[in-house]
């Protein structure tokens, strides 16, 4: 492959099987000697199991629980607080207690109803507000960090300030609604257990299985099935399902299939953390910011999961794209007896950006400047320090991107036009809003160097085809195509001679999980280097193999304890402008126009990038006004897609977008991460547009019609 510009689009590797529906997702698979598994789940939010009474099982049906786990009863993630099967305490409604296995689903569903469990029910913590009240009680705070300016210094500044602005901002749940519900198959073989399913992180699962099965490295194998969307929802959650099917397969010596019903998926799987963010900002008479304190509270749900890392990213983004003088931040993950929250595209950043964009927008009103002009005053520039005493090393194109988008959207004349429209129209009001944002690419801090230590392998066959041997999942984002393209370009080999088989831990080294906008930038760079190495030693007709290991960029070392140093090797950037029309009788918000500029280093494939922009923005915009999930006494209320309300084709409008080139030396062909960035600006821009339409301010997302009607 010899593209003049790497960004030129090529056909997607996995197109045919997907468009015809003949590509087998996990629920399309049937293997010999296969039974189904269904989970007995806790009906209560918090309590102790007193007794379990099982029904009489027909032949071929049995229950699998904690006693059948060869290793510790823990899903290995970060902390050891998540049982595979709860056998003593239950901490949320829906927590798995047992798995029933057998041939027929209707018999299993009947048996599920006949399992009788007695509990000693205890007082649960249902809401984030309750958890904040009780945050010093034992076990409630699951993680916390604090950093930034000395509080005594801030206190002195505040005493001399013209005004102290305090705001409390809250964000809701967001549910992934990947189209393919979670599914996992444990295949029983004499010498190994193979776990196959819908997933983003093969080695997270493999490590969890080695622990659960207390077995050797060669006794478990993880194979990714075509994955029907992930968005973070298939990052850590599948580890638990994998343990369930593997333990069950091991116990009953049959292959065990576990596929969720949509309502089950909506009620028991991880979601985006609801957050409460408190801002305390000192300003002078002209409205200039003198200091700012931010407190972030995340509702972790019942288990720690990845919440501590989500909190880190939320905190690292708590000042947005701004250089704020005398900035201080602290944050907590708090336990509630609700469904555990976890990874979701953006990973803590969407909450922080929604909050800071909203807060700065509100402060700007006191300075009599247009919100965007006010924000631009504080925009970080190349060479500026980060809030953790790291540095923005690379060129920042935000000013150009903003200027370009103002022109593209005709922002200034729209403002006037909308004002006139709103004066004349009693029912409908139009508004326009902006958001500025960034996304740190790759793992936080030294995660890549100290924890992930990615390795990639390229194997050249005798017929001179090259195979990518890496553990990263294509879940729709297109890495089968983009990573193959990087290798084909570096090797100057036709695209169809580069192959990327479905990852299988028996065949591939650990190139890390498919998360954190790291795949293109980190894994892609390793592949580019491996390909160049292979090219240098290329021998036609000979089988060859090259391996490449992660090398850390020289940075200010990250110290997690003091929260100082360079949190990310590089940042991607974005600007969004959104126009809405609000129906003041019903509170319904209609998107009218969406404009977006991004900078992701260098685009690897224009068409795939556009897919990330449109899809990410649709989710991000909907997070701001459309998608609403609530929990009542520990129970998720929206169990169907329509009750939750992700956008349909009639809710989204076409998006005018542009991507700016700014090649990054440590990314393949200059590329940085792009997948998460595109979601982040949606909600704050939609909020700003609604506020502009109604000339009011909101302290929460989603800004649903209910919220709007209450405000009018």
């Amino acid at each position: 492959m010899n593209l003049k510009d790497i960004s030129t689009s090529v056909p997607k590797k996995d197109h045919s099987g997907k468009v015809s529906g003949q590509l087998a997702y996990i629920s399309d698979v049937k293997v010999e000697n296969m039974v189904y598994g269904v989970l007995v789940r806790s009906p209560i939010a918090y309590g102790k199991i007193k007794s379990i009474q099982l029904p009489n099982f027909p032949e071929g049906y049995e229950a699998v629980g904690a006693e059948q786990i060869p290793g510790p009863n823990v899903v290995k993630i970060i902390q050891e607080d998540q049982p595979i099967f709860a056998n003593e305490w239950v901490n949320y409604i829906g927590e798995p207690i047992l798995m029933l296995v057998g041939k027929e689903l209707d018999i299993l569903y009947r048996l599920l109803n006949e399992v009788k469990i007695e509990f000693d029910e205890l007082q649960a913590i249902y809401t984030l507000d309750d958890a904040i009240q009780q945050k010093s009680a034992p076990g409630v705070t699951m993680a916390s960090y604090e950093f930034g300016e000395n509080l005594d210094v801030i206190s002195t500044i505040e005493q001399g300030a013209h005004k102290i602005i305090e705001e409390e901002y809250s964000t809701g749940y967001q549910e992934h609604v990947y189209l393919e519900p979670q599914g996992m198959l444990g295949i029983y073989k004499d010498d190994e257990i193979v776990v196959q399913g819908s997933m983003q992180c093969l080695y997270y699962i493999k490590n969890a299985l080695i622990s659960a099965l207390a077995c050797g490295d060669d006794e478990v194998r993880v194979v990714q099935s075509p994955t029907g969307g992930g968005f973070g929802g298939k990052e850590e959650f599948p580890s638990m399902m994998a343990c369930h099917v593997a333990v069950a397969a091991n116990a009953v010596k049959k292959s065990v299939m576990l596929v969720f019903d949509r309502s089950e998926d909506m009620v028991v799987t991880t979601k985006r953390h609801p957050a409460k963010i408190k801002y305390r900002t000192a300003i002078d008479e002209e409205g200039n910011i003198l200091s700012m304190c931010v407190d972030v509270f995340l509702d972790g749900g019942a288990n720690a999961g990845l919440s501590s890392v989500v909190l880190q990213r939320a905190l690292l983004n708590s000042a947005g794209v701004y250089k704020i003088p005398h900035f201080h931040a602290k944050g907590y993950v708090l336990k509630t007896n609700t469904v555990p929250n976890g990874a979701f595209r953006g990973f803590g950043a969407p909450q922080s950006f929604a909050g800071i964009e909203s807060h700065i927008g509100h402060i700007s009103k006191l300075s009599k400047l247009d919100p965007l002009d006010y924000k631009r005053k504080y925009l970080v520039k190349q060479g500026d320090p980060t809030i953790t005493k790291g540095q923005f090393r690379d060129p920042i194109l935000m000013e150009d991107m903003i200027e370009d988008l103002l022109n593209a959207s005709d922002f200034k004349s729209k403002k006037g036009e909308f004002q006139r429209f709103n004066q004349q129209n009693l029912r409908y009001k139009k508004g326009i809003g902006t958001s500025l944002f960034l996304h740190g690419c790759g793992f936080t801090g030294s995660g890549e160097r100290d924890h992930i230590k990615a390795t990639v392998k390229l194997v050249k066959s005798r017929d001179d085809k090259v195979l990518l041997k890496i553990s990263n999942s294509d879940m729709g984002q297109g890495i089968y195509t983009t990573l193959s393209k990087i290798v084909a370009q570096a090797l100057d080999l036709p695209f169809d001679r580069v192959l990327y088989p479905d990852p299988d831990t028996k065949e591939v080294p650990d190139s890390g999980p498919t998360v954190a906008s790291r795949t293109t930038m980190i894994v892609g760079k390793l592949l580019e280097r491996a390909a160049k190495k292979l090219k240098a030693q290329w021998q036609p007709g000979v089988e060859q193999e090259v391996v490449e290991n992660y090398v850390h960029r020289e940075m200010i070392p990250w110290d997690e304890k003091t929260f100082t140093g360079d949190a990310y090797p590089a940042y991607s950037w974005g600007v969004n402008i959104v126009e809405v029309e609000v129906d003041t009788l019903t509170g319904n918000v209609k998107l009218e126009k969406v404009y977006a500029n991004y900078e992701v280093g260098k685009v690897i494939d224009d068409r795939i990038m556009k897919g990330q922009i449109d899809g990410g923005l649709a989710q991000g915009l909907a997070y701001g006004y459309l998608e609403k999930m609530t929990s009542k006494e520990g129970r998720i209320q929206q169990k169907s897609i329509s009750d939750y309300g992700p956008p349909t084709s009639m809710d989204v409008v076409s998006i005018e977008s542009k991507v700016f080139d700014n090649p990054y030396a440590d990314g393949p062909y200059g590329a940085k991460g792009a997948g998460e960035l595109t979601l982040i600006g949606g909600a704050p821009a939609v909020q700003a547009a609604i506020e502009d339409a109604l000339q009011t301010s909101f302290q929460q997302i989603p800004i649903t019609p209910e919220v709007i009607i209450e405000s009018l």
Partner: protein
Amino acid sequence: MIKFTLNGRLVETDAPPTARLLDLIRDEFTLIGTKEGCGEGECGACSVFVNNHLQNSCLIPIGSIDGTDVITIEGIMESEQFKILDESYSSAGGVQCGYCIPGMVMASAALLSKNPHPSEAEIREGISGNLCRCTGYNMIVDAINLAAKKGDGLWQKK
């Protein structure tokens, strides 16, 4: 015994009349292109044609399809129209995770056969029962628009 035509072939089944057409297609006839995304008619991943009308196979009790003509994605895969849709989805970049796509292709074909020159609003309405979480729909709308143009004259052919 329920008899109907499935992808042009007369078939019969003794599955219970309240069984879902979706399960019958997938389990008994092992046609995997019809996917289950919600089971309540809210996502469109299980879209099929019954007597040439787009329908959600998860909401159809098989007792009601006796004597009808059922077509799944497998039944149109070899058609000229499918080829156009395939190419259009590819060049417009309409496919990401792929799980909604067979249903989306069925909805696209249904729309174009009724309305070969749809406006953007009509395209959006035509696929409004087919949820996609990856693409934000716009590149699918582009794909259908492209297919309408590339397959001009072809859509109302049987």
